[in-house]
Structures are given as C-alpha cells and as structure tokens.
C-alpha cells in the first residue's frame, strides 16, 4: 500500500458518520437498481420466450405482404417441401408449415368468427406450445384427419366438448366458398384468454382440401435454439430460398413488432428513473467530497508548500471516492442480490400485476434471476457516476494557493 492510498483510507474514516451516510446512499440506490434490473430483464426474456414459443416462432418464411394483409392468396408455394429442405439444410427439426384462414365456426347452438390454422401434427408440437397445452382429448395425429383443436374459452362459448362436430364456413384460396365439418379432438388451455378464444387448429392436409391450397401454405415457421442464433439462421434461410418467388424471411421483431417496442418503451422509462437515482447519488457524493476538501484546506496548503503537486492531491480525493464507491458497489450488489434472491424463491407480485401480466403473456407471479449482468450493471454506473462527481472537488485543488490555504482556518 503506497502512501497515497494509505492517506486516502485514513481520510475516508475521518468522519465515519459522513462516510457511512454517503455509502448508505450508494447502497440504497445500488440495491434498488439490482432488484429492479433483475426483475426487468427477467420479465423481458420471459415475455419474448412466452410470446414466441406459444405460436410465432423466431423466423417465418412468408409471401411478401402476407404479414400485414393476411390474405389467403399470399402463399408460400409447395411449402412442405420448402420446410423439408430447410430441416435438412439447417439440421433443425423445429421447422413447420402453417396455413390460416378466417372462418365462421359453428356448433349446434353457437357461431363465432375465428382464425383457423392448418398445422402439421408431426412438427407443430416442436415449434408451438399449444399442442402441449391440450388438456382434454388429443392433438390430431394424421395430416388428413378431419379433426379440430380449439381453445378452452372458444369451446365454452361454442358449447361443445370432445367428439362434437363443428362447421367451418369461409372462402378458399381461389375465392370460392369453403365449408367443412370437423370433430373436436382436443381442447387447449393456455391461460391467455385471447388465445383461448380465438385460435382453432386443423391438420394441414385437411386444411388444403377445404381451402384449395394445392400444397401451398402461408408460412414456414422456424424456432431457433436461442435468440442469439436468429440472425445467423435468418441469412442461411434467405440464401436457400428460391429467388423470384416473392418470398421473404421475417424475424420475430418484424412478426411481433409490439413486443420489441413494448420492451423499448419500458426500458426507456425505466432508464430515466435509474438515471435520476444515479444523479441524486452523484450529488450526495459531490457534497461529501467537497466538504472533505474544504475542511482540509489548511492541511492541503501545508503539504503543497512542502512540494506535493495539486495533481497528486486530486488523485487522493478521487481515490477516497473510489474507496467509498467500491464499498457502496459491493454492499449494494450484496444487498440487492440478497433481496432478489429472496424473490427468486418466493416469487414477486404486485397488486394489479396479474391483469397487466396477462397482456404480455406473463405469469402473475414472477421469479427474478440474479445474473452477473443484473448484479453489476446498476452498481457499475453508480460507481462511475460517483467518481465523475468527485472530479469537481478534485480539480478545484489546482486553484489552491498554498500560502492563502495555510492561513485558512
């Protein structure tokens, strides 16, 4: 330990109460930041995961314009062989085809307009969580089975159970009238009322017959192993698609633009709040350091006249701040980590949160995770902010006149 750091350490503890109050401000903000950021980042991940794994997938191959218009004519021709080829080229089994149409779905006593999807029973369960959420009955097994799977709320509204027949009325790909009868094979319960009310799935072969798709589908849905691999896989898919067929590859933020933007909106408002906290801590540190410099004017005057340079004294002040900030960082991360850890086991919930959470496909109780990033991101910013705020007291030393300073009381 050289002399400067030893001096700094002793100076820090000249006024223990003041030091602890300053460290206290840091610990408070740091703990709060760790906790908030852990919750926030965890929620974003869950939001993305739940939304994409439910249905959308990470990437979709579609006809140009289908994403916005959802018109039945905008198809991927011969989609099943496209999917087959992608599966072997990418060595990825989580790829499937999906068609969709708007129909009037009627039971004996009720009719509702819903979006019906034609799905491949073999591959759909690897891409979407809906097949796994079938609580009654089973997911269709054959591509041509005249079976339908509907959500729990829709089943209740249509007043049907397993084995009942539903009539589908709509228009086919060529604009002609499309009608079919399907047996309710399964009922899924995702817990998200909107999904349970508005989605129906039938096997893709059956869908082809009813809507005259002639082997075409509306999307090839791809789930990548994780979010990070999306761009790489996207470019490989793009490269392997036939050119001039009017096909495009959309990634998840194009398919669900709301999701990324909701996260961005939330991040910017949260970061505004964190910014304010950091500024308040910085003021607190600046005040403390200014006081500690001013009360040592006399002392500084003496050591300067003995030949110590203002730069060295500045380093001393910054070193003192660094010591306090480091203590604040460690204690804050510790406190924040412990609080977060408690919620990791017990779950975090807020009155009214369940309704908000449902809007974003989130559970009503949330279990935040502590990671290195969430643990040190906030405290690191506070640390830097503290050091920066001590620059003003540190630089003031350059204007100190040794003789005048020595006379100061």
């Amino acid at each position: 330990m050289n002399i400067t750091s030893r001096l700094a350490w002793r100076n820090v503890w000249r006024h223990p109460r003041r030091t602890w109050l300053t460290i206290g401000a840091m610990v408070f903000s740091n703990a709060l930041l760790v906790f908030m950021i852990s919750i926030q980042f965890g929620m974003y991940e869950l939001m993305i995961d739940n939304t994409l794994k439910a249905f959308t997938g990470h990437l979709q191959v579609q006809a140009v314009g289908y994403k916005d218009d959802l018109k039945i004519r905008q198809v991927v021709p011969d989609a099943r062989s496209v999917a087959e080829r992608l599966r072997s080229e990418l060595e990825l089994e989580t790829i499937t085809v999906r068609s969709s149409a708007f129909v009037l779905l009627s039971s004996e006593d009720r009719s509702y307009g819903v979006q019906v999807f034609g799905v491949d029973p073999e591959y759909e369960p690897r891409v979407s969580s809906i097949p796994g959420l079938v609580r009654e009955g089973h997911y269709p097994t054959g591509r041509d089975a005249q079976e339908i799977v509907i959500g729990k709320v829709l089943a209740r509204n249509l007043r049907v159970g397993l084995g009942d027949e539903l009539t589908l009325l709509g228009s086919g790909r060529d604009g002609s009238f499309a009608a079919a009868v399907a047996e309710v094979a399964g009922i899924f319960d995702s817990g998200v009322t909107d999904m349970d009310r508005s989605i129906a799935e039938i096997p893709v072969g059956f869908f082809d017959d009813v809507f005259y798709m002639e082997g075409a589908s509306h999307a090839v849905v791809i789930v990548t192993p994780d979010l990070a691999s999306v761009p790489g896989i996207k470019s490989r898919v793009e490269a392997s698609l036939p050119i001039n067929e009017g096909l495009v590859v959309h990634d998840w933020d194009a398919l669900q633009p709301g999701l990324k933007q909701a996260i961005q909106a939330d991040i910017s408002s949260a970061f505004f709040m964190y910014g304010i906290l950091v500024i308040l801590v910085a003021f607190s540190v600046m005040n403390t350091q200014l006081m500690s410099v001013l009360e040592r004017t006399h002392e500084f005057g003496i050591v300067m006249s003995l030949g110590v340079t203002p730069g060295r004294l500045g380093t001393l002040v910054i070193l003192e701040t660094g010591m306090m900030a480091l203590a604040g960082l460690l204690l804050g991360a510790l406190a924040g980590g412990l609080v977060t850890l408690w919620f990791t086991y017990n779950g975090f919930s807020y009155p009214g949160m369940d309704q908000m959470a449902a809007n974003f496909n989130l559970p009503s109780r949330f279990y935040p995770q502590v990671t290195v990033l969430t643990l040190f991101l906030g405290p690191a910013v506070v640390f830097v902010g503290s050091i920066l705020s001590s620059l003003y007291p540190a630089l003031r030393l350059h204007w100190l006149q040794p003789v005048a300073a020595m006379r100061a009381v």
Partner: protein
Amino acid sequence: MRVIQISFVLAWRNLWRNHRRTVIMLAAISVGAWAMIFMTALMRGMVNDMVRDGIRALPGHVQVHNPLYRDDPSVSNLIAMSDVELAERFSSAGIERFSARVRVPAIISSERESRGVTLLGVDPIQEQSVDAIGSTIVAGTGLDTAASNGIVIGRKLAEKLETEIGKRIVIMSQDPDNEVADRGFRVIGLFEANLAIQEEAFVFAGRQAIQEMLGIDDRVSELAVMGDDYRDVRPLLATVRQLMGTNDEVLPWNELDSYLGSMLAVMDGFVLVWIVVIFLALSFGLVNTLVMAVFERVREIGLMLALGMRPSGILLQIVFESSLLLIIGLAIGNVLAIASILPLRGGIDISIVAEGMEMFGASSILYPELQASDVVLANVVVLILGFFASLSPAWRASRYEPVEAITKV
C-alpha cells in the same frame, strides 16, 4: 416567539455560510422534485389516456347486459327490455347519454377476403351521445338513422378486405335459432381509431337493419351509459341499477375491463412508490449535509448554549435549516417541472414504439398530465419525511454539553 424568530434568522444565515454545499444540496432536491413531478405527469398522461380510450371502446361508464352475455356474447343472450322501453325509461330518468346496441360476433366478407369482427347495430343518434369509437369518420359518411342500410367499417379493415366506399360486403352471423343469418350491406363510411386493432375489430350498422337480419325484433345486447366523471361512477351505477331491476347485469367500466380498472390503482401505487424512492435517495444527502453543518459548528453551538439559548432553540435552528433547504429546493423543482411539462402539452410523439404501446393499450402520442393532487403529494411527502429525517441530527446538536462543545477542537 422571539426564539422562533432568532432561530429562523440564524438558520437562514447558516444556510449561506457554506454556499457551495447548499447549492449542491438544492440542486439535488430540485432534480429530485422535478423527476417526481415530471415522471408522474408522463405516466398519469399515459394511463388517463388509456382509460379514456378504453372507456370509448367499451363504451360507457356503466353497461347493462344479460347476465349470461359477457361469458357468452351470443345473440341468444339479450337484455330483457326492448330498445324502445330502455330509451323511454332512461330519458324520463334524466339520463341523456346512453346507447342501446346489438353486439354480436360476425364474419364480414368482401369478394376477396373474410374476417371475424364484432358487429354493432347502433342508433347513430344515441351512439354519438356516448362518444364511442367509430364516430371519427375519415371517408364517406356515418350512419344517418337506426334503419340505415349502410355499414361503417374501420380504415384498416377496409384495406385488408380490399374494399372501399360504395362496394358491397356480406355480413354473416347467427340468429337465436343458430341458423346462419346473412345480409349484404354497402360500405358507406370508414372510421379511424387510436388503436389499429379497434379499426379491424368493429363494424357498425343500423340497429333496425341488424335486428331484422337476426330476427330479434327490437331487443338489444348491450346498453352503454355515460356519466360525467369516470373516476366516480357510483351514483350513476346506483341509478342504472334501480332503472334496470335485477334481471340484467349492471357493471361499471372498471369491472367490465379489469385491466383498465386495475391500471388506475396500480398507477396510484406507482406514484407513491416513486416519490418515496426519490425521497430516500435524497435523504442520505440531506442528513449528511445537516450532520456536517452541525459538526463544523459544534463550538458555536456550545457557546450559544453557554450563553443561555435553550436546547429547543438549537433544535429549531437545525430543523429550520433543513426545512428551508427543502422548501427552496422543492420550489425550484416545481417550477422546473411545470416549465418542462408546459411545452409538451401538445403531446409527445412516441410512434416509433406505437405497436409496443398498443400492447399496453396506450396510444402513440403521450400527453403529460399535471395532476394537482400528485404535485401536492410529492411536496407534502418530501416536507414531512424531510422533517423527520432532520430530527436526528437536530436532536444530537441540542444535546451537546456546553463546556465539552466549546472546548472541542
């Protein structure tokens, strides 16, 4: 009295003895107060806008339905009274803003496309009085009477259906016997709504035309009633309940849309938490400043005590010093907040995250809303908690032993 006066003058002068410290502390309090009020105004603006929009979409502050309708929004579940009787009862009770509507799920088809929608049969004159969505006509004309044969659809829906004003579309729904009821309508107008999803979800036709098509005489599914203030709907609710008897379900907006209802409560909670968090971050600096102020004046305080000032005078002095700091800081903060909110009154365009905001149910222009109660809350919380925070250093200062204090170096 004299003691108070002296303490006050001393406190004021002491405040400016170390003007740098005071200025830094004032800056911290001002930034804190600004952030409290500014952030709250933004969030309030967003939530109030969401609630008002939500009420327009419902629409109404209070709604009447058949008790089965909300779970099963079918044409079979109608309100017991006819629309004529409803109109008579409500008008004679002095309620002017209400709309009796037929509201059923339906399929709308153009020559090219079909979509599932919510079909509303409305009386345009009644409908205008509740200021529901669908009233902002951007092309063509609105419905003129309840017997109108035209249909008004959303601008987005028209794009998706590839239809336009003057073209015919077909509406398909079910009658009470579950027979398919369908009818052609001519598109006479397009409406615009704040949320894209609303432009796709609702279509409006004349009430009589829909009643004829569905074969339900003069019955309706829904009665929407508008009061004066959405924050307090209890009187209106009681009146409507009295008028309707017990056959039908009468609910206020916050129970009809629990997400919306919980938003207001969540928001109140958020405002308080935000204010307290900012205060806590400030309080460390505040206490620190006071501790320093006392520390550097120990001899002086001892002298005052020795000269006969009562400890309560010293206590008062420190409390005054802290209160003055807070009051000046808050005043600057309030002025800053108002000055920064006023230029934004025209709304902040956040349409880059429009689809994300739509997930929250909020629109893409944010109008900050300065609510007097929030401003008062922020100032009062800071003053009261600030008072308590200053008690500890003030108490310690007043308990010094005069002789010890004077001789302290």
